[in-house]
């Protein structure tokens, strides 16, 4: 069993649903619509014929071609964001039947196996809506810059090859590298709340993804040169200490990244960093 499966709350239910899925059925898609930033929201339902192997994206494609609600009213096509269609880019993340996940990998058979079953689609609630199911995840990327989520390689001369890394260490970091910045961990986190005011982003809770990326780059032989800078951010307001240990992040992470272990590890680094600052820090 992979980590991701082990964490799935309703994996058994979805497996059972797939077995009892009825062929040639129609499913109701109940979608939370919004025409633009700051505009009011409304619910619209669509009756979609389900073909074998249909997923949420293919169903949204069908709705785009037939934008007529269940009450027979013609409406605008539903807008959503997507790219890779194989659960590696994170763009199509949305709230499906109340819980966050990628819509491209979401098979209808697993959620609505019977005729007339309902699929509920909502945009993520922690980010501003651009339109319908499409959200602006700028704050997520802003938080990666807060922890300097990169390796400093620029110089005025050739810096040469970096230090060697052991195989085990590589493996550990590979797991952390799988983060696709989708936002699932933030959507499910009770401590990460929606913040529309951009000036407050740098003091609001940074989120599990950035904490884990800070660990990823702190563990990199060249990346660790920025460790002290990263820890300065993480011991500050909105940093590691704002985590409330609900541990939803690790449960919803589609890549099975051990986010709570990263939180523990950064917690330890923060303790060490703070003691170092107290006894030898200059500020």
């Amino acid at each position, binding site marked *: 069993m992979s980590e991701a499966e082990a964490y799935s*709350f309703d994996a058994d239910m979805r497996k059972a649903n797939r077995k009892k899925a009825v062929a040639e059925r129609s499913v109701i898609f109940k979608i939370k619509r919004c025409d633009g930033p700051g505009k009011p929201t409304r619910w619209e339902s669509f009756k979609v014929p389900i073909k074998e192997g249909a997923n949420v994206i293919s169903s949204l494609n069908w709705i785009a071609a037939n934008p007529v609600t269940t009450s027979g009213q013609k409406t605008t096509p539903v807008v959503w964001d997507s790219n890779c269609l194989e659960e590696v880019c994170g763009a199509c993340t949305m709230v499906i039947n*109340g*819980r966050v996940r990628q819509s491209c990998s979401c098979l209808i058979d697993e959620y609505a196996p019977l005729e007339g079953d309902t699929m509920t689609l909502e945009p993520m609630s922690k980010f501003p809506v651009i339109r319908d199911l499409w959200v602006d995840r700028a704050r997520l990327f802003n938080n990666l810059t807060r922890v300097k989520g990169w390796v400093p390689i620029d110089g005025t001369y050739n810096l040469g090859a970096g230090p060697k890394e052991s195989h085990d260490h590589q493996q550990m970091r590979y797991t952390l590298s799988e983060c696709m910045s989708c936002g699932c961990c933030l959507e*499910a986190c*009770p*401590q990460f*709340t929606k913040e529309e005011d951009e000036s407050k982003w740098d*003091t609001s*809770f940074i989120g599990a993804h950035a904490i884990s990326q800070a660990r990823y780059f702190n563990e990199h032989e060249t990346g660790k040169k920025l460790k002290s800078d990263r820890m300065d951010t993480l*011991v*500050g*307001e909105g*940093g590691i*200490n*704002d*985590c*409330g*240990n*609900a*541990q*939803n992040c690790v*449960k*919803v992470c589609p890549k099975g990244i*051990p986010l*709570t*272990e990263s*939180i*523990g*590890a*950064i*917690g*330890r*680094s*923060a*303790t*060490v960093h*703070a003691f170092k600052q107290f006894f030898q820090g200059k500020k």
Partner: protein
Amino acid sequence: MSDNAGPIAKHHFLMRRLHSLTGIVPIGVFLIMHLTTNSTIAWGGLNSRAHGEGWMNRAIATFQHEVSFINNMPLLLIIEVTLWGAIGFHSILGVYYAMSGKGNTGEYKYSGNMRYTLQRLTGYFGVFFIFYHVATLRWGWSFLVPGGAVWSHEAASSTFAAALQGSTDGFTGWGLLVAVFYFVGVSGLVFHFANGLWSAAITWGITISRPAQKRWGVVCAGLGAGLMVMAWASVVGFATLDYDQAVAVEKAMMDQPAHAELEHEIEAGSDTAMVDQQDVDG
């Protein structure tokens, strides 16, 4: 961090970690000692050196003995003020921090998420409970006690039983409410401490791997279960205590001249010593 940030934001890390630390030392440590003392009403009958005959009388005497011991500690007021300060600090910051989150147990029914929300709810309720508990029994705000009982450290069992039951002769309706309030309050606080101990280990970076967090979780759950039994035994013990019986035991202890027991033992000891001497002489 802006220059005009408040003290909580300016010393963010220190405040957060002090909040975590005060929950364990002194508050958590005190909770363990407090429940150990109070649960003597349930197991004090085991104390064979108590001043009383019969299980219940020995329990009352043991509890009274413990309370008298605590009240004879030097600089007790400093210990108390330290505790009140720590509890006040932990409560105010705790409520402030808890309000920064927004629970979502409706959508994400994971056990960790349930504990996250329960930790905050027991925190809010705990502040309320501890305030009532300390105000009525320590500061003597007896107008908040049904029946108006005033707790006394010299008649610890009887006065507490009266405060918990609403009168000096058995339960009243309001008394029952107080007893239930105590039951819910102590249960919530024991959970709050055990769960807080689990999450503090992640906060400080002591438990990192998932198996380590799980193992520490088992330890915390075990400690919590033990404390929960002690907490329930205390509340049930005092809620079912007979007021008159408690008064009788306490009176007998008060009437006994100081160190009477000790003198008796010394006398008995010297007799034995003489006997031993005779044996040697003989």
